[in-house]
């Protein structure tokens, strides 16, 4: 007897939603083994990772704060993935958004003008769009693959930020620390809950959920995106422009990542530093897949991922575990999800070893 996979006639809908749960269970087991291997009591560590951050108002506010950039980036990424447009450079668009919006804050802050914050936000969105637009141009004009170009642009943007905060934008009174001046008060986003760090950027992120759902499910553009991704030949036959979809997806996801970037520096940070993101743009890829490339699903998966960030910080403080635990757990979660997803299209069968040989086909 041996295990074999048998193709289902149609994808199992229930497995689409059961597979993230399976993945979560698998990850909890994997993480427990990891903690045991690191010499920490697994149950206590799990408690610190998943439960402790949710016990206080402050913890919940921090959760929403961390979910904000993840949600914004992931919804943009997911819409692209629906059309098989792989924007994996959200981290770079996030950075350029922060640079552009932050530049406005540094140049015009302190005047108390009502239009300063809207202008910063627009600059952030425009920066992210422009950065992703480079990849869209290279893809549509020269056929250069967006996975590699968006990623290279990420490395470039991080060096650009490094150049600015070490060079022209460095705070002259900052004891030569690589950072800009603190933004003036009128260039900081208003807080949502007194006494916490939660700012109005969270509302943008929440608004992105219905925006993404309606766009994908109820508009012509959404239909085009889904068709180009699921059935490229049908999309060509229907006369949908592949290039148009590439431009749309990259500009949209770039703009959302740029918005996330400016919200991050005009929110909790209040200045530009060489490292403004603990990998939100990359983690958002996991968030997008974990949420089934569906905006509502992404709302939940971004909360889960934010919890991992918070819990990871908690582990660092209370159990002296390195912050890299977070990335390890994130990667593990995605592994389990991708593995469990096989159950959507295949069922597992036990069959005698002899009967297994046979015809081949592409899945």
């Amino acid at each position: 007897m041996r295990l074999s996979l048998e193709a289902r006639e149609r994808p199992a809908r229930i497995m689409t939603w059961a597979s993230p749960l399976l993945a979560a269970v698998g990850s909890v087991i994997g993480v427990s083994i990891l903690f045991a291997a690191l010499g920490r009591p697994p149950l206590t560590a799990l408690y610190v990772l998943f439960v402790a951050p949710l016990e206080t108002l402050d913890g919940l506010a921090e959760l929403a704060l961390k979910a904000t950039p993840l949600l914004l980036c992931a919804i943009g990424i997911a819409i692209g993935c629906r059309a098989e447009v792989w924007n994996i450079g959200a981290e770079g668009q996030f950075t350029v958004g922060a640079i552009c919006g932050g530049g406005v804050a540094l140049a015009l802050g302190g005047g108390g003008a009502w239009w300063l914050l809207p202008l910063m936000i627009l600059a952030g969105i425009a920066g992210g769009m422009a950065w992703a637009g480079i990849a869209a141009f290279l893809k549509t004009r020269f056929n250069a693959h967006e996975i590699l170009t968006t990623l290279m642009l990420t490395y470039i943007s991080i060096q650009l930020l490094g150049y600015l905060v070490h060079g022209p934008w460095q705070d002259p009174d900052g004891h030569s620390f690589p950072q800009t001046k603190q933004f003036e008060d009128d260039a900081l986003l208003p807080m949502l809950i007194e006494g916490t760090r939660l700012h109005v950027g969270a509302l943008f992120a929440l608004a992105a959920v219905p925006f993404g759902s309606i766009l994908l499910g109820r508009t012509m553009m959404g239909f085009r995106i889904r068709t180009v991704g699921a059935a490229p030949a049908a999309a060509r036959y229907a006369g949908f422009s592949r290039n148009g979809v590439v431009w749309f997806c990259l500009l949209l996801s770039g703009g959302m990542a740029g918005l996330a970037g400016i919200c991050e520096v005009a929110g909790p940070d209040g200045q530009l530093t060489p490292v403004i993101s603990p990998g939100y743009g990359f983690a958002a890829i996991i968030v997008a897949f974990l949420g089934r490339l569906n905006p509502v699903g992404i709302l939940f998966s971004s909360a889960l991922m934010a919890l991992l960030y918070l819990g990871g910080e908690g582990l660092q403080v209370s159990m002296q575990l390195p912050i890299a635990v977070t990335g390890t757990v994130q990667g593990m979660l995605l592994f389990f999800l991708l593995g469990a997803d096989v159950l959507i299209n295949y069922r597992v069968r036990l069959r005698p070893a002899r009967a297994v040989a046979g015809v081949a086909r592409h899945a």
Partner: protein
Amino acid sequence: MHEVEIAVAIAVATLRAATPLMLAGFGELITERSGVLNLGVEGMMLMGASVGFIGTVATGSPILGLLLAMLAGAALALVFGVLTLSLMANQVATGLALTIFGVGFSALVGVNWVGTPLQGLSTDIWPSLSTAPPMVQQLMLLDPLVWVAVLLPFVVQWFIYRTRAGMILRAVGESSDVAHALGYSVLRIRYFAVLFGGAMSGLAGAYLSLAYSPMWSENMVAGRGWIALALVVFSTWKPLWLALGSLLFGFVTIAQFQAEGLGLALSPHLLAMLPYIATIVVLVLISRDATRLKLNAPAALGRPFHATA
């Protein structure tokens, strides 16, 4: 005479910078020739870099360190293989997951080793070093892995085009159905190719942490895995072009030192952008001709294979 010495110095620095790209690039080239696209090169290199470093410091033997690094790269590649080959997961998403996991796990494994000093790979393999002319000495001081990388293009070229195993590999990558019908085990061959790619990525990472800059720090591969991936596309899956591309990139990478030599005072941050900009330029140049790319790419690249009963 002075110019010649500078030229030799630049050539040596170029070779050193090209070595990790070649090692990882040839691993990925073999993987992709079997029809599998593994985007996890960066993650596997990082695992190789940390495990290779720790192994060398802990055992005192660089050889053991290198072997452990190859094992670490192959172990991560095995995870990729199980997910994409046996469970038919999306190769792009799984590759990304591999990189995200590798970045985190290598940092976790190496956290207590940041800042540990290491002497670096021994370059003491040639006799009569001190009696050779200075320029030859520079070449002789290159570490052994550089020589492995120099030989690699020719070995891989021979393997792919001149051996039976290489032909089967190409058949699996071009048409898995036909190869299967001929009686070759598509999955087994792809597993081998994926594991080889992982081991080579691990070796490339260990070269960085043991020889190129003997130390371990988080994320020290700094995108070289992705550049290696871009180079495989640039080479249109041909070994000798991959070698050429790697050398070109090695040259761009050391632009920093060249600029200093020429008296240019540019910010190190701006100079550090150069390899990434060059990658984009190269990609654009090579991708413009979509037909040529399509003709040369392994036809089954990225497609899962499932033999049904």
